């Protein structure tokens, strides 16, 4: 206890030291316009941070001192940067100290944030889980001032194996400098390493510092543009500049050897909760009875795991919240696959473990796989750490190929990866032959939206009829994730709302939603509708859009410029069959359909129609596919004009009009 008290005092004393305010350069004071981006509202002159993991009094401590100086050029910047708020979690041993700020006016006058202007409040508190906030508003702000502020974050009694250091801000920044003191061997037992993502920091060099600042090394970057968000962009971790400081036991320099070694090690860890019991063996035999091929057996086991086991993270198969609560109460530290099987319920990792165990029992020789995700940074082979391989799947070897399974998600068809895992690197943790592979992207034929409509156009231009929508692959997974937890009436309401947003004024009746929480069931929507004003009536004619399902579509890409690459979640296909009965006494006039648009390997759109012999009905067929396992899902920013042009053309075809004329 005594050492804890001493440590506390020591932290307070050292943290009170903080960083001194640095003198302000007159050029910074007089600066009238941004230096990096002429259109920026504000620019950070510098961001300096001192980061260290140490032991004091036998306790670990992670400490980050931050110091930012920002020039505000206009009223928008004053509004945006006027308040500073820093959250922290005392229950996790976290504290904030040296929280201070000041304003430097263009004439050099300095206005300090006074102690009583710093507010501290409990944002949220429940038992020991507390979020506290320290905040202040900068006084005397006006365009042209420089603001600067400091705060020190301390994590007591812990050190951080991974520390993410931003190398970019939401405003342009002249200079970012990190001073890092590597954790000693007594704490980490491993050497500190660093890996830059989307940035090129300077090489580490010893920092020149005195007193308590001994042993720091410095890295940084200069003249960094602001980070901005764009639609269809890769993940933030793959676009924003950041540096990962981490501790890794491996001293291996050869990536190939590193990944092989890691694969063997991970296999052991992942296998720990897997128990191939007699019960598992019997069940595997039962599930695979009558199946002869490896693929059929593995698919049957995956379907069993998805349909017969309740998944505690999903509402599939009608799992209730009460059941989940009861389940989580039963989880102990040594919870294994047999426990989950006994309960017929598990977390995704438990279900994946059962799949592995059943596959093993069925003689399918499964292998664990550590998989990357497009929601974080892409895998880099020369970044020798498992940090980017956080997802798990199971591979089943089949005639020299590897089949991929993730029955921990109840809605993914057997053999398919989730949308964020497709095209990502995976480490096959085969103890005999560990290796890196690339998970394939599924082709458009696996993710299909099939739409059928039997419709009638009235002589006022109103359209009415009935519709059936069926979803497959990623379309179904995404919709089931959206709808599964809703009750049947709410699902219908949610689908109705989406339809009303797409077709303002539509009147929907007899809407049904099938299989929204049934893992292998085909998700189907059916409804009747009337839509006034669909066709535009002139004196003699009615103009209407034969591709009814694309009515009111907005162009996919509206902006002329692009900074980051464009990504599509997955390849897909839309298949539309639309029958439209024409109004009595009207005939098609100068009818023409756009036909086919072939976009190389990337996509294809076909919009065709034929009219019945009696000229009373037209039959429209639309088939659109985008992306393939090897193309169409990722485009560099330089290719944006071509992508936009293609989608503008797709939009134009979808909006194609036909005319009927009164006879």
């Amino acid at each position, binding site marked *: 206890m005594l050492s804890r008290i001493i440590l506390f005092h020591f932290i307070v004393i050292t943290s009170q030291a903080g960083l001194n305010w640095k003198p302000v350069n007159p050029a910074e004071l007089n600066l009238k316009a941004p230096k990096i981006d002429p259109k920026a509202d504000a620019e950070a002159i510098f961001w300096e941070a001192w980061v260290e993991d140490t032991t004091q009094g036998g306790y670990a401590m992670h400490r980050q001192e931050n110091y930012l100086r920002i020039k505000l050029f206009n009223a928008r910047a004053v509004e945006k940067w006027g308040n500073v708020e820093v959250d922290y979690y005392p229950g996790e041993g976290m504290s904030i100290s040296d929280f201070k700020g000041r304003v430097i006016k263009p004439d050099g006058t300095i206005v300090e944030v006074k102690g009583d202007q710093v507010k501290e409040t409990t944002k949220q508190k429940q038992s020991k889980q507390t979020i506290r906030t320290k905040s202040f*508003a900068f006084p005397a702000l006006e365009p042209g001032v420089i603001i600067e502020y400091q705060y020190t974050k301390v994590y007591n009694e812990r050190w951080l194996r991974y520390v993410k250091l931003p190398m970019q801000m939401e405003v342009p920044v002249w200079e970012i400098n990190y001073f890092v003191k590597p954790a000693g061997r007594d704490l980490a037992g491993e050497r500190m390493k660093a890996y830059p993502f989307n940035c090129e920091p300077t090489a580490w060099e010893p920092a020149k510092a005195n007193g308590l600042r001994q042993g720091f090394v410095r890295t940084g970057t200069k003249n960094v543009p602001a980070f901005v968000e764009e639609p269809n962009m890769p993940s933030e971790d793959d676009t924003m500049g950041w540096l990962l400081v981490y501790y890794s036991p491996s001293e291996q320099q050869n990536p190939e050897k590193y990944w092989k070694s890691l694969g063997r090690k991970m296999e052991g860890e992942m296998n720990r909760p897997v128990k191939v019991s007699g019960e598992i063996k019997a069940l595997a035999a039962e599930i695979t009875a009558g199946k002869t091929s490896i693929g059929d057996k593995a698919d049957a086991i995956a379907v069993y795991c998805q349909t017969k086991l309740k998944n505690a993270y999903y509402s599939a198969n009608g799992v209730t919240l009460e059941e989940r609560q009861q389940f989580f109460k039963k989880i102990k530290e040594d919870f294994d696959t047999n426990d989950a099987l006994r309960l017929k319920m598990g977390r995704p990792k438990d279900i994946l473990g059962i799949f592995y165990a059943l596959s093993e029992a069925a003689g399918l020789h499964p292998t664990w796989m550590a998989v990357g995700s497009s929601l974080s940074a892409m895998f880099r082979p020369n970044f020798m750490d498992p940090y980017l391989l956080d997802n798990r799947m199971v591979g089943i070897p089949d005639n020299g190929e590897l089949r991929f399974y993730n029955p921990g998600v109840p809605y993914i068809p057997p053999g398919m990866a989730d949308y964020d895992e497709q095209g990502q690197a995976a480490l096959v943790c085969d103890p005999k032959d560990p290796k890196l592979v690339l998970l394939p992207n599924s082709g458009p034929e696996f993710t299909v939206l099939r739409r059928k409509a039997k419709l009638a156009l009235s002589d006022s231009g109103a359209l009415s009829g009935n519709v059936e929508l069926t979803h497959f692959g990623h379309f179904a997974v995404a919709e089931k994730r959206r709808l599964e937890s809703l009750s049947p009436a709410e699902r219908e309401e949610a689908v109705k709302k989406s339809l009303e947003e797409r077709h303002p004024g539509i009147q929907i009746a007899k809407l049904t939603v099938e299989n929204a929480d049934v893992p292998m069931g085909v998700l189907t929507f059916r409804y009747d509708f009337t839509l006034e004003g669909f066709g535009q009536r002139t004196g003699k004619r009615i103009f209407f859009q034969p591709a009814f399902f694309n009515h009111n579509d907005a162009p996919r890409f509206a902006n*002329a410029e692009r900074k980051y690459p464009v990504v599509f979640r997955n390849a897909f296909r839309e298949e539309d069959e639309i029958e439209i009965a024409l109004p009595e006494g009207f005939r098609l006039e100068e009818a023409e359909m756009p036909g086919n648009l072939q976009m190389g390997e990337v996509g294809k759109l076909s919009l065709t129609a034929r009219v019945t012999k009696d000229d009373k009905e037209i039959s429209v067929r639309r088939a659109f596919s985008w992306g393939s396992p090897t193309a169409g899902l990722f485009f560099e920013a330089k290719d944006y004009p071509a992508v936009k042009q293609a989608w503008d053309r797709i939009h134009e075809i979808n909006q194609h009009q036909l*005319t009927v004329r009164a006879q």
Partner: protein
Amino acid sequence: MLNFVLLLLATCSAGFAAVPAWVSEFATASHPAYPGKTKAVVLFNEEKVIAEATGRQVTQIRKVIKILTADGRREAMGAFTYDQAGSKVREARAYLLYPSGKTKEFNRKEFIEGESNSGLYLYSSRKFLRLDGSKEADPGSVFAYEVTMEEKRVFSQFYFLLQDDLPTLKSRFHLTIPAGWSVLAKAYGGARAESEQSGDTYTWEATNLPPWDSEPSSPGLWSQLPRLAIGMLPPTGAAVSPTDPVACFRTWKDVSLWKSALAAPQVTVTDAVKSKALELTSSHTDTLAKIRALGEYVQKIRYVAISTNSARGGGYVPHRADEVLKAAYGDCKDKANLLRALLKSIGLESWPVAIYSGDSRFTQEDFPSPHQFNHAILAIAVPKETNLPATVDDADLGRLLIFDPTDAYVAFGYLPTHEQGAWALLTADEKGKLIRMPQAAEGTNRVERTWTMSLQADGSLAGQLVEKTWGQDAFDNRQQSEDSGEQNYRKALERWLSNAVPGMAIEKLEYRFDPQANTFDTHLRFTAPSYAKVMRGKLWMVRGAPMPYFGTPNVNQSERTQPLLVRERHFHETLTWAFPAQLKIDEVPENESAERPYGRFATTWKAEDGAMRLERTLALKETLLPPADYAAARSFFGQFRAAEAAPVVLLAR
């Protein structure tokens, strides 16, 4: 032993034995069948207040909610706010009755504490206590909670919402008053003001309140819901001094006196305040120009809300004017107070005005109470010849300019539309009163667009748009452009335009807010690669008006249960088209017009050889249409929409 067995059997058969009797009583109450989308039903909603003459009170809240749908899980929430300085939570408990029959009790420690309004305030002494049962409440569950707290109230008035948007089976408010005191109750939104009296306790009750559907283009929810406003009055006279233990109000003058006394000491005209006022006004000789210079300065001060001491009226007391000037930030009352001090320092009088921001229908004339407001603005004495949209005449104080120093985008002389026409409290000691905020004259808010377009022989379009907006339309554009910055505003315009004209590329864009004319002007030149729909090269179709007008109310729903709010709008558009020589006009839409008590529109087409001119106007009056008139209104706006979407047909020569 037998007794023990019987007791055990009784406990088991009771089913809800682990919960208090009031919970099990209402948990099993039958309720009507509601539409499938109804998320939950409030089976019981009760607040009991025992009030003392000192302002101390004990409040007990009880609520029982049955979850009907999966989305309704989030209704399994017990939440209330209190001031950390003046209140003490005696007890807080919640119960969850699972559909399986099992029950669970949550104690005080399981409630989450936090700062109320943390998004709005940088700091507030107001706290919340919340128990979230949503992670366990399946449809069919019943969630109940009970809270008892001691509070110190600043004034002796109570607001009670009989329901929110959920259907409510039974809702009750009990008030026990000190001996000899009386109550004044008002009811709104269809509620009943009559109560049952038993000794010093009064009870108001409502039963079987139907669900409240959220419908677009409706008036604000809070001004429509059934609610009670109750005042507690002492036996003799009303205490109106802030030093009194609890303030009571019989008239609006009482409220004015109370608020005036709280605010007056904060109008600190220090040397710094005087010096700032002189600095800002020294170049002006005209009174209005001086007011404008000071007003626009305060508008630019940052909005930062720091609320302390709300249990002692802190929520009604601005920070001192000199402090706000020095910090250069403050909330609405701080800004109004600073402007008041600046004006005072140059010899101009002004008075705070309390108003309900966001819904001009909220404040009720017949219940004098500070509870009815959420915003502070200012009434400034101006020369009697002043003729600005936001002026009113007061019998005691003369001509007043109403000015909102918090809204940085509404120009001097104007008032935001959501404040226009509302009742507001002029806080002027003895001369204080409830006054109607000025309503801008018809046509003050206006959009005028002029399009010049040339259709090319390949079906592409080249054109320009000049848009001029006035009044709130101009201020909204100003806000959007200034908040976004040039790059983001351009992107927003690109998205907006390309939804109407696919592929549209902006070649030139200029925009500015004119502070003299108070207009926002936009000038853009554009091209669109394939605007015309061309059929076999012979039949061409173009939409005469490329851009819909978005100022009409949402009438997409076929039926409504709530009134439709038609906002005041004025829109005029002129479109001039030039067609390529190889085309001749075959069909031009019919001219359309319609007139209703709340608005009119006209669309006029004029075609000449190779050219066409379209002119359309829409004028709407601020009107609240009852649901019975909805079908006719839907037809009127549908006609306007159809007219703007009407195509022009061209044939190849």
